């Protein structure tokens, strides 16, 4: 489904991401982990068109999407969430999702402006789907609350809802657990697991190793922009490179 070959990004002399390879097959739930500054988010930005790679190639479902615009990549089915609270703050929760639902509405501008029958029918469908999605991410009772006034955890779930409304084939989640309390972490992990069981392919960035270990079946570990390990949770846990990256050694400090 997703093939990444030698993906590299240089910021001046700094190699933020250095020739990373990754391939994801349909139905997988892959974790991308690594210490702070390892280049995880930069990697996401490269995949989804927010940054242009210095070199390397990204292929999604057989199509080369390297260096394409974010909206194009989202339209092809590779949809991301953001680490910060990325929501449309002035809209209600429901309106947020309705806006996201228009990506595959198939309506042209005349239909939209003239509110044709087809348009009204599609908008009705999108509205219903938005309500369902709100329920799914657990904030169904907050449909008419202004998004900007939601609690942090609810905003994060709304962010995931936005991505889900785009009917992703591959969902990229950027630290969905950041800043959540323990109950919210559990809910989110259950949701991720459920989406995956329903057939969605997911690439999950997570800083919280324990949480990531509990859901993902395969891992890619980055440090200083390079792949230092790849494999199952057991393999990752026992990999000396990973342990060193997370715990550090005396040699690192020197």
């Amino acid at each position, binding site marked *: 489904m997703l093939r990444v070959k030698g993906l590299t990004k240089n910021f001046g002399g700094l190699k933020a991401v250095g020739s990373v390879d990754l391939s994801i097959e349909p139905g997988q739930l892959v974790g991308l982990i690594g210490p702070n500054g390892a280049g995880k988010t930069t990697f996401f930005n490269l995949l*989804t*068109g*927010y940054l242009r790679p210095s070199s390397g190639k990204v292929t999604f479902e057989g199509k080369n999407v390297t260096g394409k*615009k*974010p*909206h*194009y990549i*989202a*339209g092809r089915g590779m*949809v*991301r969430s*953001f680490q910060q609270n*990325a*929501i*449309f*703050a*002035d*809209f209600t929760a429901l*309106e947020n999702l*309705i*806006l*996201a639902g*228009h*990506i*595959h*509405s198939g*309506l042209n*501008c005349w239909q*939209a*402006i*003239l*509110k044709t029958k087809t348009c009204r029918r599609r*908008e009705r469908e999108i509205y219903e789907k938005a309500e369902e999605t709100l329920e799914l991410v657990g904030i169904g009772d907050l449909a008419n609350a202004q998004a900007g006034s939601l609690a942090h955890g609810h905003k994060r779930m709304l962010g995931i809802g*936005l*991505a889900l*409304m*785009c009917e992703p084939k591959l969902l990229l989640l950027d630290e969905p657990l950041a800043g959540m309390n323990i109950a919210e972490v559990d809910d989110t992990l259950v949701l991720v697991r459920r989406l995956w069981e329903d057939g969605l392919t997911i690439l999950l960035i997570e800083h919280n190793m324990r949480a990531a270990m509990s859901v993902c079946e395969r891992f890619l570990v980055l440090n200083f922009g390079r792949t230092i390990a790849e494999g199952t949770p057991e393999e990752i846990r026992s990999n000396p490179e990973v342990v060193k990256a997370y715990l550090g050694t005396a040699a690192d400090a020197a």
Partner: protein
Amino acid sequence: MNKTKRSRFGIAAVFLVALVLFGVFYSGDYVLHVGVLVMINVVLASSLRLINLSGQLSLAHGGFVTLGAYASAVLLTKVGMSSTWLALLISAVLAAVIAVVIGIPFTRLKGIYFTITGIFFVQVIVLTVQQWRSITGGNGGLQGVPRPDSILGIEFASKTSFFMLAIVLMVVSLVILWAIERSRIGMTFLGIKQADSLAESIGINTTVYKVAAFAIGGFFAGLMGGFYVQYVSAVDPTVFGFLPTIYMLIYVIVGGEDSFLGPMVGAALLTILPEVARPLQSWMPLLFAAILMVIIFLLPEGLVGLPHRLVGLLKKRTKEQPDATS
């Protein structure tokens, strides 16, 4: 919800009928003239607001009006085009096309940088029409632009006829702007305004929408430019230069940027004000600036927020009164 929608439609209809009746029965040329100017400015302010909806504070608007005005004037006096209506359409389309051409690079810039390019654009247009004397008549401008051709047996000569034509153009423009705003497209503009990289992530081609907003605004600005020049039958380079552009923005903010009605209220009051306060003519920019300041500090939601505020105040009063007597 539906009820307020219907009552809003009702109010608009009553207002429109009143406007038409006023045009039919009132024959004071001066007042009708001011009425035409009001309606032109209403469309200019409303179309400027549409661009603002997409999160882009534009100061290019006067450039589009000037373009539209000169397009009609040059076509009708120099090129010898025979149909004034075709010239009017070309004024609008040309402004929209230029908006697309400059919008593609300009809309890549964000915030204040985009705004600055608008000022630059207005200056380029003004300087161009000042210098390109063979076509535009330089600083003297162009005179003798023909009045609109008669249509359906209506001759455009009296102020009343122009007043009616202005009503038609204004209503058509506002209906289109309203339809765009309440559609998915308007919602997308607002989304882009709030978070444009998030909008990209959910598959919205933000460049296309930003350029589209700019071009739609430009279209109506060009249309009003063409209409203006066919109405007063003359144009000079600075009628819609930098200061008038700033005025358009002031109409929007003073009236209230967040509501569709806002720019209409702002444009109407601030077009009438200089006419009422003729002796203060040379102080007008200062007066406008003062009004803008007062609104920004005391009534940030604009004049359309005033009734709501007053109701709030009244309620507070009536609540307090029993307390005071008891």
